[in-house]
Every structure is written in structure tokens, then in C-alpha cells.
């Protein structure tokens, strides 16, 4: 069964360093997303991406964050200068479609990358 994959599973970095989190969405999906979950809190939407551009972003997704689809398979999240409060689980997700209010909108999640900022 197709699945979303993410690398690395765990990333430890120093405050102020840049990190890149990688995702391979399900191959026939067109919409890609990043979410995060800070320990003990809700899963929060960061950004959605379609047709090589950002469709929507949350207030969390400030200038320190960027996303890219550098080739036909990978989808990346870059944090330019990490802060302590960026420590969280980061989940990538993908869906066939968006905006149809039907099963093609269903988002499938990867296993996550645990980011620890020291």
C-alpha cells in the first residue's frame, strides 16, 4: 500500500542552525502539507502546497520557514534559523485532491520527524 515517508526520523540541532526535513508523498497525490505537534499539544497545520506553490499557510509559518518540491518526488520543509520552540514532531501529509469534500480530500500522514532544538 502506498505510504508517505519522511527522513530523518529524528533530527537534533543547535539553536540558530538550519534544518531541512524531507518527505516523499504518495506518488499520485497532488496536494502536500506540513503539520507539527508540540509535545502535549494539538496537531497544527503549517502549510499546504499545490502546483509548485504555497496554497495556504498558518501564522506559525513565518519567514523562517520555507517549502520546496525540488524534484518529482521529494517535498521539503526548511527552517532557516531554528529556535527552541521549534522542537516538535513534524508530519508531512498528502492528498489526491483538496476542496471536494469527498474521499479524495483524505490526507495521509508520514511517520514524522522529531526535531529537537538545543
Amino acid at each position, binding site marked *: 500500500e502506498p505510504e508517505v515517508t519522511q527522513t530523518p526520523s529524528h533530527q537534533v540541532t543547535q539553536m540558530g542552525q538550519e534544518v531541512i526535513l524531507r518527505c516523499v508523498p504518495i506518488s499520485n497525490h497532488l496536494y502536500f502539507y506540513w503539520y507539527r505537534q508540540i509535545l502535549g499539544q*494539538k496537531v497544527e497545520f503549517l502549510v499546504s502546497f499545490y502546483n509548485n506553490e504555497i496554497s495556504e499557510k498558518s501564522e506559525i509559518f513565518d519567514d523562517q520557514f520555507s517549502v520546496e518540491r525540488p524534484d518529482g518526488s521529494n517535498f521539503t520543509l526548511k527552517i532557516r534559523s531554528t529556535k527552541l520552540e521549534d522542537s516538535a514532531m513534524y508530519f508531512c501529509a498528502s492528498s489526491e485532491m483538496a476542496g471536494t469534500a469527498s474521499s479524495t480530500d483524505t490526507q495521509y*500522514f508520514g*511517520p514524522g520527524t522529531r526535531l529537537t532544538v538545543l
Partner: protein
Amino acid sequence: DQQVKQNSPSLSVQEGRISILNCDYTNSMFDYFLWYKKYPAEGPTFLISISSIKDKNEDGRFTVFLNKSAKHLSLHIVPSQPGDSAVYFCAAISAGGTSYGKLTFGQGTILTVHP
């Protein structure tokens, strides 16, 4: 952001009995709802969904009910099994407007099924 609420942080059920997990929402623009199951240190796993034009959707042991007038949905698991023990998240999407698939999650309910 309290647009999706799961008011029960935990639920404990005996194996073989029914588990009922509840979710309330406030945004009337939500028109597609999903339930995810999550184990520690793993990503959310999709379970079942329902469109706002329906009031019930069933898939094996899992049934989701939607009451639009009450802005309430529930997930029924019958019969419950110990392997169902996990955190269950309710999530909602507004398909219209400028929201391109943004999922809004509830806080989650920890389900424990005892043998």
C-alpha cells in the same frame, strides 16, 4: 484555535464492548470530517471519514455519525479490541473558500481497551 473539540481526554472500555468517541466543532464551514488513530512516535493513521451531506458512514467495526445541526460527530468502534488502544483525533476541513485542505484537529482522546 478551539474550532474542533474533543472534550474527553481519555476513555477506558472493556474488550468486546462499544467505544464511543465524541467531537464537537464550531465552524459551520467545515464540510468534511475525518478520524485518525495515532500511536506514540508515529504519524496519524486515517480511519474513516464523512462528508457533510451524509449523517453516517460505516467501515467494518468503525462507524462515524454526523449531526450537523448540533455540530457534533462521533466514532463508534464495535466490538472494541485491545489493539484499538491509541489516541484518536477528530479533524475537519472546509472544502470551500480559500482553504486548500487545511485540517483542523481536536485535542485527541486516549482510548484504552482492557482485555
